[in-house]
């Protein structure tokens, strides 16, 4: 089953109104090439699930700035004043989750579960409007699983079956999202022969991946952000 395909075929599976998960935490692990293809395709009314909104004019922020995203489920937008302003102007609906609860909800969806129970935020505004139950004497918030129609993820290496290996801090949300969508599109920096990855060191097994797209050229946005060099 050769899952290597061209980017436009892969992205054409994404339709107006769908829910899309996008990997990445800052630049590392963000599938910039897939995001650009989705932008070009013109798909609208998306619900986006991503840790943050990248930074202005970068990554998913481009989709949001172009008005393609109705709703963003995220953890933190501290580095994106543009999207924060859009949120304040009600141009986009934003749902904030504690970061670990966000990834846990995604993993929960990927694990075919309905939800989980956590005490994170229990005595804060976060527990408003949520079901609170008691289990073995512990009070917890019921958090619902998150799934998406499509996940767009980034990996360092892939094979034609769809096995993936991530690199350093570019792993972040990608493995959880790879489990939690009906269709998973992975962009990879290089495709290697099937069988050449160490089976003990594969992060995402092939079963979770539907399309593998090779990045031909790592454009500038994949590089170092000069304003994040602190010494």
């Amino acid at each position, binding site marked *: 089953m050769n899952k290597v395909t061209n980017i436009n075929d892969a992205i054409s599976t994404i339709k107006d109104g769908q829910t899309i998960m996008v990997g990445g935490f800052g630049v590392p692990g963000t599938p910039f090439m897939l995001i650009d293809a989705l932008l070009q395709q013109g798909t609208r009314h998306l619900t986006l699930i991503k840790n943050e909104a990248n930074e202005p004019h970068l990554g998913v922020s481009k989709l949001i700035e172009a008005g393609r995203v109705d709703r963003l489920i995220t953890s933190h937008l501290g580095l994106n004043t543009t999207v924060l302003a859009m949120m304040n102007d009600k141009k986009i609906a934003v749902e904030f989750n504690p970061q670990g609860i966000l990834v846990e909800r995604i993993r929960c969806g990927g694990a075919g579960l309905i939800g989980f129970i*956590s005490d994170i935020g229990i005595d*804060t505004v976060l527990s408003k409007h949520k079901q609170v139950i008691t289990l073995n004497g512990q009070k917890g918030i019921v958090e619902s699983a998150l799934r998406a129609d499509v996940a767009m993820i980034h990996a*360092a290496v892939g094979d034609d079956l769809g096995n993936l290996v991530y690199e350093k801090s570019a792993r972040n949300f990608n493995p*959880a999202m790879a489990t939690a969508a009906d269709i998973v599109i992975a962009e990879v920096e290089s495709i290697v022969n099937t069988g050449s990855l160490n089976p003990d060191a594969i992060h995402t097994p092939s079963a979770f991946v539907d399309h593998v797209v090779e990045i031909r050229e790592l454009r500038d946005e994949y590089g*170092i952000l000069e304003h994040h060099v602190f010494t």
Partner: protein
Amino acid sequence: MTKKRLTVSNARDKIARRAEKEIIAGQIVNLGIGIPTLILKYLDWEKRVQIHSENGILGMKSHCSRETADRNLIDAGGGYIDLVTGASFFDSSLSFSLVRGGRLDIAFLGALELSARGDLANWMIPGKYTPGIGGGMELAQKARRLIITTLHTNRKGQPKILESCTLPLTAKACVDRIITELSVIDVVDDQLKLVEIAEEATLEEIVEKTDAPLMVPDGELPRF
């Protein structure tokens, strides 16, 4: 007795330097954005401390130069970093299992407001500052020890330590110790207890700038 006043920059460094002393050899530590990150500047690496970063790193060292920056290696604040020997990478899910599962010995975080019983507010000012939550709530609630490193007062010179927080809470009764440029204060049995006084501070100044009851033990307190 007049005391020398610290600049804000010096105050932040002083807090970070004092905070570093809290770390015991071999501990797993998470450093929030701001003053907590400054602790790296003073960290004694002989302690073989393991610094955790929420984005999936155990064993980050410090911010690195442009020359050694790796596009795939940043901390949770976005800065390029290098690693200690024995570092590991993992996904965000395992990263928060580490935090919520109780494997984090200390989290250092900043604060907007703190209450007498150890409540922390540091994530939003309704209508003004609503950037989201990030990993702070889980760090605050689940680190074995939560140490707040913050300037004693806000930009307007108003106390950050209050009887009760007025801002939405990050977590209730989570703070173990507060380190400011003026003092070290512990939260003990829902009360604040002064444990150290800065060389540059007086007891009167600390009491004046703290808007909550403060237990002051008899005798001379250690200076820092």
